[in-house]
């Protein structure tokens, strides 16, 4: 490749923006680790969890659910026509969880103590131990599930063969761990009944988190497939292009059914709390916007798209559901948390917190682009035809 061609391939709008965000994020990261949390965040004892937990962790884990949802559909329920979606979904899950742990290093006051729950003091009565243990173990499972693609790229056939044999075991383990920690993330908020607004607080929070994570996972797979089609079309082989159509309609139908179930459990939760009177307050209208605008509406859109065989509607519904999941997690951790406090004592993220979140997401996108460009994620490796 000539120097000019290399320059042209390096200086793309994506690369330039990503480089600027990463270069901007490095000094903030240095500040965080040299001067502490107080230098770069607005966190305090009243608001100890900010957007690094509400967005990077809660939303990140929910949106990374595509890995276990797709792997379970294909490997456990035998829906082989979605096989082409497994590797991209596992990759998104693996990167999503890696970034969650990476972001947690910024948020935890003494990040070098992150392995303590495993090695020093388990604290098994804490729901956070359950979350930490599951996320740690599931990240390992995702790494192993993803590794065949990397091993094919590296040409390590023997190790790949061993890992591929473990697929079913890893999938079962992944589903069990995901079920546990997706719900436990909701269970973490059971400890704050007086701080979280009653419309969002429910003893069924773990159920809400788990069911919504399935919808999030299905929608993320469709959304990611759409983005891959647009940006990495040249990396996709005919098999993957054809399969993405099955994925859009099959996952769209599943998402419609799951969102219908999610809508029902949310309404049941509302009824069990007997909070109907709060529906016509300011927070009530916000709650209705979330429930009708970001659960019922995309559910209807998915159903319409599947019924009319309209991929555009399904893709829009997927994008809208992803936004809805982000809104739900932010409502619980941020907008409707400490709702009774005066505005002066409420938490608003520092611009450097947002900077670190952008920094973390951008690193994820750059790594995703690198892996998809180099490894057999959106195409079959010529040495292993029809194997994945």
């Amino acid at each position: 490749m000539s120097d000019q061609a290399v320059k042209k391939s390096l200086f793309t709008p994506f690369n330039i923006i990503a480089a600027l965000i990463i270069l901007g994020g490095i000094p903030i990261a240095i500040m965080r680790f040299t001067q502490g949390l107080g230098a770069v965040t607005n966190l305090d004892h009243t608001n100890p969890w900010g957007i690094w937990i509400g967005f990077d962790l809660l939303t990140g884990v929910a949106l990374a659910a595509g890995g276990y949802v797709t792997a379970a559909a294909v490997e456990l329920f035998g829906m082989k026509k979605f096989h082409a979606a497994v590797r991209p979904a596992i990759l998104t899950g693996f990167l999503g969880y890696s970034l969650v742990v990476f972001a947690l290093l910024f948020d935890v006051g003494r990040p070098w103590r992150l392995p303590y729950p495993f090695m020093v003091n388990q604290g098994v009565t804490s729901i956070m131990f359950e979350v930490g243990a599951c996320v740690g173990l599931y990240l390992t499972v995702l790494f192993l599930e993803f590794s065949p693609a990397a091993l094919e790229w590296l040409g390590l056939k023997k190790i790949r063969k061993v890992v591929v044999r473990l697929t079913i075991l890893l999938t079962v383990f992944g589903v069990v761990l995901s079920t546990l920690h997706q719900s436990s993330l909701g269970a973490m908020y059971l400890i704050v009944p007086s701080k979280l607004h009653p419309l969002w607080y429910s003893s069924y929070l773990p159920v809400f988190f788990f069911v919504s994570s399935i919808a999030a996972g299905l929608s993320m797979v469709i959304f990611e497939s759409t983005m891959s089609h647009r940006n990495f079309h040249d990396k996709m082989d005919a098999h993957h292009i054809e399969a993405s159509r099955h994925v859009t309609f099959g996952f769209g139908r599943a998402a419609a059914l799951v969102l219908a179930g999610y809508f029902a459990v949310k309404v049941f939760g509302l009824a069990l709390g007997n909070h109907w009177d709060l529906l016509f307050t300011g927070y009530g209208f916000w709650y209705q916007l979330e429930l009708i605008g970001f659960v019922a509406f995309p559910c209807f859109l998915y159903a319409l798209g599947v019924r009319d065989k309209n991929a555009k509607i399904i893709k829009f519904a997927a994008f809208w559901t992803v936004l809805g999941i982000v809104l739900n997690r932010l409502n619980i951790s941020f907008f409707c948390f400490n709702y009774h406090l005066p505005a002066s004592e409420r938490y608003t993220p520092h611009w450097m917190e947002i900077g670190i979140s952008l920094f973390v997401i951008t690193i994820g996108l750059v790594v995703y682009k690198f892996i998809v460009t180099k490894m057999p994620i959106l195409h079959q490796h010529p040495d292993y035809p029809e194997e994945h």
Partner: protein
Amino acid sequence: MSDMIYTLQDFMTHTKGVVYILAVSYLIGFTAFWCFLFRRDKKED
């Protein structure tokens, strides 16, 4: 109705009752939704 709630028993009876009504309505609604989602496929088959 909520003015008549004095005890936990009252509260549970009221809220559970509402949930049972909602659950039955939901099952009927879900059947309709299922038909909306799958009927065209069956016609094509």
